């Protein structure tokens, strides 16, 4: 979508004119936003009640005539409801601004409140049919969000890939749910855990794997992540904020609810499988994020990375449950939840800024951005905070969750045999991920917002509208709030772990975060205070010595003798990540074409060298494209039966009927 806009300036022009003169009707937009806001606010309210009040459940026969609609709340559903609800509330002003400025297909716009509504219903479902019903509704409601550019080749492809992955996941989930509910028909989801262990192990393991695939495809777990980098650039900014911050987390909700709680204690290899998938996802996701140059693709891959980290925490939670270490399990779960909450906030913020850029400039390719700090100050500060959080550094919201995860890992008990090797391996993964995410976020922020503009359109942009900035500022405050006082969600962690493990985690969350049994602690506000004191000291010294110095001068930059430095001479996102791409070339397999044009036949004097290098998803080409071709081949074999002969169809129908009769007999 983006590349075609760049290569086709006329289309861009007409698109812009369309944008300016054909905005969505004001009344329509207000209605959509009010509706979304109502849904989001009530979701947040229910979430708070669900977490703090004792579990509630109810049912109605309104929609699903056979099974009835069964709803329930417990702290686990409350947590995920809280993530989607609160993010929904904060995104609304941006949504209003975005819709007022950009022309989107009506289906996309109408789908937004429905999407928020279904997202809130998924964690509330209390029976497998109800759950699947809402799950599919949510999946369907999110498809129009991706299909925001139906006239575009890559837009259509993204929709197709998204739909395919969603339905593949739904199929796996359906079978898993069928296995689970077949042995306990009508049992509410919350009560399943006590019963399940009497089932055969093979069946349970099958259900586990299928549920992991199904929910993993929603959470963007490698190798089911391929829809993320395709769908996010297509969806409008606020919608991708919701999809990445909230919907993707619901995949993790499914894994906790079904793979861990419903299926009972399970085997050790289940936990190890979760950790392995989490590790692969975290590293692969961040590696791809670090070499990609489109801001939204980068953020999409970083979403996969964060889900990988959360999955590592969830896997540790499962492992500790199996090993009967309830306290450590509660800590691991707390770490996972904090990672998810923080991810919702900072990724929501980052995608909103990306949405503002998309709406104001129309480009999200970092290699054509730059210098936004001077023209879009609010967005720049917003992205700065999001980037600080995303890189898992102190004073960022993700630091708390990652710190707790690291603490859980380093306090592994000694007496669990060779399972302790999970400790150093998981720590290595988390550390490499953290290091690479720092590089990725410095790249995104430094190339996109600092320096000088790399294209004309980036140079002529303005700050997004006040309503849009309101959302960005709200999320900035939320991020900083979580970073400096995670005590605000202490009650979430406490209620959640009490309801699931029966123990309180030994985490003291507040402005000082500590593990109560050890003396490990951090205190972000004091750290920040030290920074402020230091900054004041340096400022005073500079003021004091300023009189002894000559006046400052403005001079040109050093360009090895060149007088004028053009914006083209800056480092780009591609060149910034090039060393990394080279180091990890075995995993990333970058596509590189070098063409040389020589003066003579001996190639001694080169006239011109063309180097073209682009990152691509090696897993996509190696696994999915091959799979698609294989499917195509099989399908073409089946086509032989479809020759239009009525007699053959009837015969096949009869044959099929006979087979069914024989099997069921």
């Amino acid at each position: 979508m983006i590349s075609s806009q760049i290569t086709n300036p006329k289309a861009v022009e007409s698109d812009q004119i369309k944008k300016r003169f054909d905005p969505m009707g004001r009344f329509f937009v207000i209605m959509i936003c009010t509706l979304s806001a109502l849904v989001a606010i009530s979701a947040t309210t229910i979430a708070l009640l669900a977490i703090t009040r004792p579990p509630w459940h109810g049912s109605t026969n309104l929609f699903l005539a056979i099974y009835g609609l069964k709803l329930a709340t417990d702290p686990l559903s409350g947590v995920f409801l809280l993530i989607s609800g609160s993010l929904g509330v904060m995104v609304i002003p941006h949504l209003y601004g975005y819709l007022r400025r950009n022309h989107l297909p009506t289906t996309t716009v109408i789908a937004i409140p429905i999407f928020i509504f279904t997202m809130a219903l998924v964690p509330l479902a209390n029976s497998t049919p109800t759950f699947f019903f809402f799950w599919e509704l949510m999946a369907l409601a999110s498809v129009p969000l991706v299909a925001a550019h139906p006239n575009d080749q890559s837009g259509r492809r993204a929709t197709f890939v998204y739909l395919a992955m969603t339905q593949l996941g739904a199929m796996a989930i359906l079978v898993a749910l069928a296995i689970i509910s077949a042995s306990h028909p009508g049992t509410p989801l919350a009560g399943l855990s006590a019963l399940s262990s009497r089932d055969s192990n093979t069946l349970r393991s099958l259900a586990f794997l299928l549920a992991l695939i199904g929910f993993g495809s929603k959470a963007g777990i490698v190798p089911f992540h391929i829809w993320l980098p395709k769908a996010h650039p297509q969806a409008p900014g606020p919608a991708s904020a919701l999809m990445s911050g909230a919907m993707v987390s619901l995949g993790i909700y499914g894994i906790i609810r079904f793979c861990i709680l419903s299926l009972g204690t399970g085997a050790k290899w289940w936990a190890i499988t979760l950790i392995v998938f989490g590790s692969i996802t975290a590293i692969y996701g961040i590696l791809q994020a670090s070499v990609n140059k489109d801001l939204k693709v980068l953020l999409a891959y970083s979403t996969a990375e964060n889900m990988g980290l959360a999955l590592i925490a969830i896997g540790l939670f499962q492992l500790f449950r199996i090993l009967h270490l309830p306290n450590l399990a509660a800590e691991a779960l707390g770490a996972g939840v904090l990672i998810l909450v923080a991810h919702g906030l900072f990724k929501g913020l980052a995608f909103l800024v990306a949405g503002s850029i998309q709406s104001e400039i129309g480009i999200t390719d970092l290699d054509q951005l730059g210098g936004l700090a001077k023209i879009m100050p609010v967005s720049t500060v917003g992205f700065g905070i999001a980037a600080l959080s995303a890189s898992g550094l102190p004073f960022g919201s993700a630091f708390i969750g990652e710190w707790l995860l690291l603490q859980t890992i380093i306090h592994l008990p000694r007496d669990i045999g060779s399972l302790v090797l999970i400790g150093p391996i998981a720590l290595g993964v988390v550390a490499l991920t953290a290091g690479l995410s720092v590089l990725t976020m410095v790249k995104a922020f430094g190339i996109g917002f600092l320096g000088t503009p790399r294209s004309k359109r980036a140079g002529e942009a303005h700050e997004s509208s006040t309503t849009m900035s309101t959302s960005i500022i709200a999320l900035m405050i939320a991020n900083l709030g979580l970073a400096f006082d995670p005590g605000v969600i202490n009650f979430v962690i406490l209620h959640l772990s009490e309801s699931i493990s029966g123990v309180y985690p030994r985490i003291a969350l507040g402005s000082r975060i500590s593990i109560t049994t050890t003396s490990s602690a951090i205190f972000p506000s004091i750290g920040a205070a030290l920074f402020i004191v230091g900054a004041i000291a340096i400022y005073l010294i500079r003021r004091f010595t300023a009189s002894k110095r000559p006046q400052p001068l403005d001079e040109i930059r050093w360009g090895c003798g060149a007088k004028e430095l053009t914006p083209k001479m800056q480092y780009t996102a591609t060149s910034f990540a090039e060393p990394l791409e080279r180091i990890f070339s075995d995993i990333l397999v970058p596509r590189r074409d070098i063409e040389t044009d020589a003066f003579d036949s001996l190639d001694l004097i080169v006239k011109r060298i063309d180097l073209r290098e682009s990152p691509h998803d090696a897993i996509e080409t190696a696994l999915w494209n091959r799979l698609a071709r294989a499917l195509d081949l099989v399908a073409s074999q089946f086509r032989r039966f479809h020759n239009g002969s009525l007699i053959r169809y009837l015969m096949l129908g009869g044959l099929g009927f006979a087979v069914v009769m024989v099997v069921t007999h």
Partner: protein
Amino acid sequence: MSYLSLILQITLIVVISPLIGQLMIKIKSKAEGRRGPSLLQGVRELGKLLKKGEINPIGTGSAFALAPAIYLVSTLVLSAIIPLIALKLPGSSNYDLFWVVGILLIGTIALGLGGLDTATAFGGMGASRELMVAALIEPSILMAIYALSIRANSSNIFKIVHATLSNPQQIASPQSALALIGLVIVVVAEAGRIPIDNPSTHLELTMIHEAMVLEVNGPKLAMVKLASSMRLVILIGLVVNLFFPIGISYSTSSVGSIILGIVALVIKVSLLAGLLAFVEVFLAKLRLFRVPELLAGSFVFGFLAVTASYFLPVIKA
């Protein structure tokens, strides 16, 4: 008294780091058969830079203007949260080693963003390389922290140092040796010394750190130079105190023990810095793309240290 010793510790680091940096240059020069500059040369250079007028490169923004200050402040903060001269400093229970690593990274990032903000090829190149090294160090450094925190059952630095002091024979174990080697490589990489980076290079294409700050000048350059040498001293001090905390003051109440702590720190840091400088004479800078090999090696040391701590029985002599 405890706040006084905190201020004393910060001041000490600020004062001795230019001297230690110069000591390293002196030792290298002597080993190469040159006389080398005087030990006060570093201080003189800082003074000269402070007196110079600032030059604002056209086209740079506030990130460039703020980067040196943030770099220096993060380094000052580091010097306040690490037990260098005394075990009980105010706020000592509020930070751990992961936090220290985070603060280190914040300084690196500030300079990297400053480099990118200059919108020149050198700034970007330096930032890209520095961040790449920083990203690849992360696993090694966290693994070493893991290995250290197993024996103290805490990642709090003060607790780790305390555990070492109360049970010194723990140090004479393979896991400690492995963690020490891993950490030394990390320090060398983090401080940008040979074989990762050459701080005295004058060839732009081989620079990492120096390319990033190519546009920085005057008092700002003084800040960057001071902070860089402080980081080296702090990191060396951290390593010596994690493994050989001899002489560190137990409390902040007696003046004598604090003076002893200061003297011990200066001696230990000078010794290790001198050793590093002497070894550097025999090394050449690695190719940038061989740096990952070294860092992978340091990661493996940390990894083995952790595995050994779990699998080897605890020796009580």
